[in-house]
């Protein structure tokens, strides 16, 4: 009863819950039925990218930190997971196959703790977060911002990839780590387990979206926007902006790391090509196209861009990169708020004679807030679990 009255009292919350419910239905009920195992596994991979995107949306869209190096955190999470899977495949005391080929045939000391599953899971989250915290404090207290921060983070991604390539005997070099047979005891060749991985990824992504939503609507979220726009002014109010930025940066790093960790069993390989400069920029493109300052823009943008990449690469293998570049330029030049800002514009002018979709947005729902849980209605990928119907179904009763 109390929850029901609470829901009625807070229409925004009703809509949010409805949005989450719809997303859950799409991901857990519709997608597994509609999609083949192969496509479902692809979608699982895109969900991993979307996890990185959610974090970037917070750090860049709300915090103004243009993180061109999320590949580092994605890669750290992925490699830690891959190391654990390799060790688990090798059995107790065993040596991963590639080490026998390239290395001394002995497991290095710093690999050993990752034999334990709990240690590996903790390390997946804690190592990247700790690195982000140290890096963030070093950088933000020195007031490195804007393009300088972007260049710094990108250089880090480049250095990380080079380091991985150079240490072939312990990291697998350019080949990366691959050929995993099991995932915490579950056979990765079994389609049922692949499906389970999709569900895990979907659940984790929903949790992350919920977490970032809470951060965005909280006082912290308001403060983060304040820091983004007027860092000095925040300082004169008695806050240390570095702390606020570090928190957002660490959250983004942790999400990228978890995305990377789930990427490994889903895709079956992690290599320097997945974590360097180019993939780091790739993470950003989806966020920019979707709408960096919104909650769902980055998620849907990342999924849509990855989906488009896969489908277009199937038909025009060399054309995708040009298409992606062109899309990025168009969005940055003509739609800085991303596709999500289109939704806002449509909703703000519902009574205009030229309003294309009169039914989707009730006039009273015209809210200037960018956090409203609506994604781009017209994303390029029709298969993306767009939550736009939420407005159509619940919007009419709210407000």
């Amino acid at each position, binding site marked *: 009863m109390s929850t029901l009255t609470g829901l009625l009292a807070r229409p925004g919350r009703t809509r949010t819950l409805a949005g989450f419910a719809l997303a859950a239905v799409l991901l857990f009920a519709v997608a597994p039925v509609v999609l083949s195992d192969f496509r479902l596994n692809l979608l699982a991979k895109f969900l991993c990218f979307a996890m990185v995107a959610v974090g970037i949306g917070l750090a860049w869209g709300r915090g103004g930190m243009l993180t061109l190096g999320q590949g580092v955190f994605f890669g750290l999470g992925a490699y830690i997971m891959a190391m654990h899977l390799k060790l688990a495949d090798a059995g107790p005391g065993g040596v991963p196959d590639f080490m026998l080929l390239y290395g001394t045939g002995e497991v290095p000391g710093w690999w050993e703790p990752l034999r334990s599953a709990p240690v590996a899971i903790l390390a997946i989250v804690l190592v990247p977060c700790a690195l982000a915290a140290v890096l963030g404090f070093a950088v933000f207290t020195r007031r490195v911002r804007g393009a300088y921060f972007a260049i710094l983070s990108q250089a880090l991604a480049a250095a990380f990839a080079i380091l991985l390539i150079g240490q072939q005997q312990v990291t697998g070099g350019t080949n990366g780590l691959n050929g995993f047979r099991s995932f915490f005891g579950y056979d990765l060749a079994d389609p049922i387990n692949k499906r389970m991985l999709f569900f895990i990824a979907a659940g984790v992504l929903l949790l992350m979206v919920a977490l970032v939503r*809470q951060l965005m609507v*909280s*006082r912290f979220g308001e*403060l983060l926007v*304040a820091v983004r726009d007027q860092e000095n*002014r925040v300082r004169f*109010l008695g*806050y240390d*902006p570095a702390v606020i930025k570090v928190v957002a940066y660490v959250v983004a790093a942790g999400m990228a790391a978890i995305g990377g960790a789930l990427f490994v069993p889903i895709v079956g390989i992690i290599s320097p090509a997945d974590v360097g400069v180019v993939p780091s920029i790739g993470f950003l493109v989806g966020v920019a196209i979707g709408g960096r300052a919104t909650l769902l823009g980055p998620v849907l943008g990342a999924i849509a861009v990855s989906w488009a990449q896969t489908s277009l690469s199937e038909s025009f293998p060399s054309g995708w990169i040009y298409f992606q570049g062109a899309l990025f330029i168009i969005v940055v030049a003509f739609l800085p708020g991303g596709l999500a800002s289109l939704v806002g514009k449509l909703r703000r002018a519902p009574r205009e004679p030229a309003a294309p979709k009169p039914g989707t947005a009730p006039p009273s729902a015209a809210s*200037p807030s960018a956090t409203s849980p609506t994604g781009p209605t017209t994303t390029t990928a029709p298969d993306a679990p767009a939550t736009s119907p939420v407005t159509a179904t619940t919007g009419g009763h709210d407000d």
Partner: protein
Amino acid sequence: MTDPTPTTAAPVTGPDRAVPDAINPDAVGLGLEGDGIDLSSAEAVLGGDAERFRHDYLEVRGLHVEFDGFVAVDDVDLTVVQGDLRFLIGPNGAGKTTIVDAITGLAKASGSVQFGGTELLGRKVHKVARAGVGRTFQTASVFEELTVLQNLDIAAGAGRGPWELLRRRGGVPENVEAAMETIGLTHLRDVQAGILAHGQKQWLEIGMLLVQDARLLLLDEPVAGMSHAEREQTGLLLQRIGEQRTVVVVEHDMEFLRAFASSVTVLHMGSVLSEGTYAEVQADPRVQEVYLGTAGASRGARRTRPRAGAATSPATTSPAKPAPTTAPTTEA
């Protein structure tokens, strides 16, 4: 050493309740239809406890600021006690804003800046703010993408713990509500600050200082670009705040200065030229020479005019009022 107890005529010794009654809130409206500053609400956000500020005083000693060899502020001494409404004036480049920057930790400085016995120099900006120092800027700097309410809520929240920060704002804190009433922006609480009128942005900044509970308020040209009515209201509010707290205002506007300053420090070329009440400063021949002469120039007079001419004609022609420690505009 300076006596920390107030020496000005501000009525802190009497019962505090009597203070707001001295100013008739109805006289403040000045045709803005309740849109303007509401002094009666100021009481709620300022609080009646003047005792809390009794030992506050700003003491600047030997302040020296240098930018790449250029001496912007040289050996400035400045003492402002609680209950004072001090105006810093001086020609462009005199070092007014630089002094504010040095006090708030923005500009690197040597010497000593103490507030309430705490040394401020060498502290980081946000630590200075935590010590009770608040400031505004020449160009009103509010968080343009956030609403009026969000701006004030952030200003009020420097002491919040992590859990409070991670939760959504439940209601409107009392002091934020009172500050919104005071600066007349209650009906615009959900409006993005970026689309406020210029004067409203400046009021919002003052409101942010109020909810920040700054004990030392440094205002950099708070009435620049305001209409006459808005200036009056702002001046009365600053006077009200000044009765209780330590307020330093950097201002160019001589009329505003004459109406509201309880004391004036004149700066010239990075040093203190003169200090005292408006009348005293006005009578100081050095001030007439370097400052009022210059101000006269900006009003159409020739700067090369000899000092004999300046001595009898200060910046404006209307007769100067005595040092205005009471609200001089209520008679208007």
